[in-house]
């Protein structure tokens, strides 16, 4: 229903001070092409999604492989890596903002002790987006790790033992036995994270507010600005339709890749 309502509203002139769904045809869709912020916002969204999801998939899988090993105290590590999932998103964002504060943050304090020049994490055009990606990885990688770990722990031991008896190295076992076995779970984790990254809001709002300039304004955040800051509900709905289309492209690609490899 919300999706259908947004689609319907995208053809109207509905604003917070003129809450009448008057028909305006494709006017809002034409505005998409003349809005000077839309190209940059789409690029930022793509960069953010690609960097965050790829990093989370790699780090999460490596974490899962480490946590699947049989060693003393592994249960404690498994719980430790779940902690980010238990922290409320806003609390995590506020903590990251304090950590990355240029003048008084712990990250720069530690860097200063080591002798590295202090970075302007959240207000620099080149570092602001990577800072948000790092904060997103902190909560996203454990999600991937948990899902992949579940897949690993439910795997039968026989194929791994057979590969080792055949002389496969540890890296080859991972590459040719374990990863193919957990691919469906990993594919699901990547789809899950892609959707989550596209709708990331709290980190951007708290850490950078979409700045500096519009360097960290993603499509989801731009929708929020239009609907709730500018009261431009119909144009925000049009952007929401664009978000659905923008999300469908990577999700479709992931689905196709997964399906092709399954055949």
């Amino acid at each position, binding site marked *: 229903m919300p999706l259908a309502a947004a689609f319907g509203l995208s053809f109207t002139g509905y604003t917070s001070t003129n809450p009448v*769904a008057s028909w305006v045809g494709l006017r809002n869709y034409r505005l998409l092409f003349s809005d000077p912020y839309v190209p940059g916002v789409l690029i930022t969204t793509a960069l953010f999604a690609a960097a965050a999801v790829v990093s989370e998939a790699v780090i999460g899988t490596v974490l899962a492989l480490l946590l699947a090993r049989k060693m003393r105290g592994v249960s404690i590590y498994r719980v430790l890596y779940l902690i980010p999932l238990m922290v409320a998103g806003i609390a995590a964002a506020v903590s990251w903002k304090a950590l990355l504060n240029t003048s008084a943050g712990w990250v720069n304090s530690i860097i200063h002790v080591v002798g590295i020049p202090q970075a302007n994490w959240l*207000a620099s055009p080149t570092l602001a987006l990577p800072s948000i990606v790092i904060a997103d990885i902190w909560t996203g990688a454990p999600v991937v790790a948990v899902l992949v770990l579940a897949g690993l722990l439910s795997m039968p031991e026989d194929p791994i033992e057979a590969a080792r008896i055949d002389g496969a190295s540890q890296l080859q076992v991972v590459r040719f036995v374990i990863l193919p076995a957990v691919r469906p779970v990993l594919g699901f984790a990547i789809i899950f994270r892609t959707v989550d990254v596209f709708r990331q809001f709290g980190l951007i709002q708290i850490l950078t507010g979409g700045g500096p*300039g519009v360097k960290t304004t993603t499509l989801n955040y731009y929708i929020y600005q239009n609907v709730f800051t500018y009261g431009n509900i119909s144009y925000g709905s049009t952007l929401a339709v664009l978000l659905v289309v923008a999300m469908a492209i990577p999700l479709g690609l992931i689905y196709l890749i997964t399906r092709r490899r399954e055949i």
Partner: protein
Amino acid sequence: MRSVRSRKRCVAAALAVACVALAACSSSGSSASSGSSPSTSTTVAKSITVWTAADPLYVYQQSQLKAFTKSTGIKVNFDQIPEASILTKLQAAQTAHDSSFDFYEVPESLTPQYVSLKGAEPIKPFLDNTSLTPSNYDFAGLPSGSMTQCTVNGTLYCVPTFSTGPLLYYNKQMFAQAGISGPPQTMAALVTDAGKLTNSSHAGICLRGSNTAPNSFPGQMMLLYYLTYQANGQGIWLNSNYEPRLTEPAALQFANNYATLMTKDAPKGVGAYGYPECLAAMTSGKVAMWLDDSAAASYVFDGQGSAVKNVGYASIPCPPTNPSYCQLSAPWGMFINPNVSAADQAAAYKLLTFLSGTAFQQGALTNGKIPALVTRPSVLSSASSVKGIPSDLLTSLGYIQTHIDPNAIPATPVFNQAQQPLNVALSDIISGQSSPDSAFKTAQSQITAILKQNGVIK
């Protein structure tokens, strides 16, 4: 195959039409306002619900509600909502003509929005009802600048709940060390002093730099000192034809001074600073000056958790180009929900007169030590010295209240949207992505485009 596609198109079109019809129906729903007119009603409800922000200012209000209940018999459910979400929640509630609250406190600048959503009840009929208005209620003593922001098409919809304006917080010790005898009296002196005060141990000045802080709030505070005043209600940086004025020489001079302050004299990373970061920098002795809203004064002078004990407060005098209306004020107001019964509205109005009354405000100043809750200039002027409140703060607040620009921020979605390029321009200046002139020229053309698209200018 073609027929299937055609059928799908028909279904999609029908769905879109149904959605629009649904939205149209929901938007045209009638108000739930009912009962007798407030101008004649004498029935007063025994219980009301207040929606306000979760802020220490309102904690004091809540602490005084026992006295209100004792004197009126009206019980108050005081619902404090996180400040980040109250506006969103209220907008949704008003769109749905929600009747679960009777009284609410939000920024006055949003009055036109609430009026168009049929979410604000006119105040005048209550004022005229002698059975509801206390005989000693001094309506004329409320500040005209703030009241203007509560007025839409000549109708008053709210009364200010707290007073704000641009206040310069400064570290007296750092000023003395830099050989500066007192706070700057002009914007040019502010820039010069910030340069003198900047050294390796602390920055010269702090201004909110983040787009969402919003950075344009202190920016527009300063712009009122640069641009000539517009009395036509178009705001600070639109001319009488609603065209932006960001390429005027005075605006470009501001942009260059702003760039100097934010790139040379502000703390590193100020581009991500909001009000809490500047407050922390000020109270921990990491900046010598902070230009921001006066509502923060209570957090500075109470000394709790502050390493700086000798903070001075100043209001920079208005320039000759704008001698009377140089103070940007974004006060919050008290509103009555029209979607509740007349008895509930009457009870809400009684709370409104209590909180905006002289006695409550005197108590907020002398007992609560919260000058921000004092909206009546007469209360401030009669209390030239209050134990526990710096006298220069009281003097500055008095100056602010009598020099407010009543038309600084037109609250329309188009104007809100038009501020976005200004926010981005200031952010680009801070981060060095654009020169001041280039950033303001870009903002000028983008704002012009927005205003044209919305039919504000041709």
